[in-house]
């Protein structure tokens, strides 16, 4: 018994040391965001002399032309929220049709979606850009450097995984439920929106978290479609554009990094359990 206590204490000490090492970079970001550039060069690990300097750094970064924090923050929010809403709605609709219609065609469409999960962004990104440019020229609907274009792209790329996860969930919902509704005179779309859709809540949480983390942090797609200096920027793109313009100004770069991290960290503090669960479930399936 005593040996076991000793082992637990040893494990606890290892846990504490590991968490200090793992969280150390975040400590460095906060500490150095509150310093002047010159002080960072002298000692980047010390506690800042004046914590209040963090506010003047933040003000400077927020007002910067290349970063324009609030603009990029709201662009990121708009893109993420609309993409996620449309993705959950449309992939639930599609998955429901694919589960409840056992035809050769529904199997083919489903297999196509599933096998497309293997396709990396790198193999489609270049033709995607030229296709979107063509569509813009042909129809007059701007697909590059616009919200509608990037949201449309996220629907296409996020659809595979979302349909796959929701498909598995709907299979577990008894068909008798829908039959009962039909006998009571409900139309198919009524059955879906009033009975099936509310039941999908747990799987929607998983889909929202998986896609949310991806869309929010994605760099390559927005940087190619929106451009580094375009009108609309997401936060990762804004950070890159900011770093490009301030090569050695680490105080400002770290403040920008801090501002870019903050929204996710705050969200994580509130919804820790759901986020971890959602991301793990997405990986196992």
């Amino acid at each position: 018994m005593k040996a076991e206590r000793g082992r637990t204490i040893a494990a606890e000490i290892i846990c504490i040391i590991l968490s200090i090492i793992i969280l150390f970079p975040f400590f460095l970001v906060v500490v150095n965001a509150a310093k002047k550039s010159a002080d960072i060069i002298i000692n980047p690990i010390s506690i800042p002399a004046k914590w209040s300097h963090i506010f003047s750094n933040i003000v400077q970064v927020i007002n910067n032309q290349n970063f324009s924090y609030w603009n990029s923050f709201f662009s990121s929010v708009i893109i993420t929220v609309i993409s996620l809403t449309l993705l959950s709605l449309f992939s639930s609709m599609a998955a429901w049709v694919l589960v409840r219609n056992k035809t050769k065609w529904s199997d083919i469409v489903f297999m196509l979606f599933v096998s497309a999960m293997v396709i990396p962004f790198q193999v489609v990104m270049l033709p995607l850009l030229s296709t979107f440019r063509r569509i813009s020229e042909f129809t007059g609907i701007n697909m590059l450097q616009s919200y509608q274009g990037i949201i449309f792209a996220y629907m296409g790329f996020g659809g595979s995984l979302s349909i796959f996860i929701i498909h598995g969930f709907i299979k577990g919902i008894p068909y008798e439920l829908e039959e009962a509704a039909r006998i009571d005179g409900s139309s198919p779309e009524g059955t879906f929106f009033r009975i099936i859709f509310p039941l999908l809540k747990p799987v929607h949480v998983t889909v929202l978290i998986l896609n949310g983390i991806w869309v929010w942090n994605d760099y390559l797609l927005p940087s190619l479609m929106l451009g580094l200096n375009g009108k609309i920027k997401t936060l990762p793109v804004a950070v890159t554009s900011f770093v490009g313009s301030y090569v050695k100004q680490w105080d400002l770069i770290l403040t920008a990094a801090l501002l870019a991290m903050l929204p996710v960290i705050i969200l994580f503090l509130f919804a820790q359990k759901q986020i971890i669960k959602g991301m793990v479930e997405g990986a196992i399936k």
Partner: protein
Amino acid sequence: MKAGKKDYLYKIICIVTIAAGIAAIVSALILDFSGSKSNIRGPMLLIGMTALIFGIFRLPCKKHRQLINIVFLFPLVFAFTVTVIIPFMLGIFYSLTDWNGIKFTQFLGLKNYIDMFSSMDYVYSFVITVIFTVCNMLLVNLLAFMLALLCTSKVRGRNFYRAAYFVPNLIGGIVLGYVWQFIFNKVFIILIPGSLSMLADANLALVAILMVSTWQYAGYIMMIYVTGIQSVPKDILEASNVDGANGFQTLRKIKVPMIANTFTVCIFLTLVNSFKQFDLNFAITNGAPSRILNGKAIQATEFLALNIYKTAISKNEYALGQTKGLVFFIILAIISLTQVTIRKKKEVEL
């Protein structure tokens, strides 16, 4: 009778909506094809499509169920076709031409593929990507499994540690990459007096990316292992305890075999994700420093994903970049197929 009349009116409204939608789409397309630059053609097309879909959605008829199926599938299948299927097909074709991102003038056959494999920088990039992928897979899984064992033991504050180890995974590789660039260039050289930045040395820079990648990813994989370990039934563990097995024996003879599936999932997940590494690579080193190989300077830390990006975007060689992208896809497809085969085999054994 009255209800019948109402239904009739309703049906007519739907048909009118559908007809108006088709008319709007057709006229928008006529404008498109005639090369008009009118501003209303975009909105007209969208409104026409919405009207058409809505009319079909509401149309009462015998085949209502089939129509609903089509309407429900349409948005996602359409987006998926335009963003994934069509570019993918075009990409295969473009890799056989001299495509420059806008148009192509001639068909080259396999010339791009031959150019690619005979260029030193690509072969080098290929080799270091494979080395990085294997090392990162081993390191991440080793660390993650140990963290998972720690976080499922009897330590107090387990949930706090799990969350703490998980945090780096929440933040995008771009932002973290810049933070680590700072740490390597400004912090480590002060912590270890007299040392140069790891990022200035061709080999150490690779180690640096490996470190950050492991740091970022281990917490996530740890949570998958934690879920696996927690799914081992308690009574089996108690039985082994009663039989006098020590901690190590329980781990080796019970826990590890029972979560063999979790191991497969984690190993393939890390393989695929390490192979696709782009954000950290881009933000920490962006390929630098260079290394002299056979009298030619090559970027020492340019993994395949970054190599593809730079070939197309920086050097403007779109066809070559597309060809590299296709080979990238083929390798990932082979990895995934292997995983599916292993899974099927295991299911048969069970």
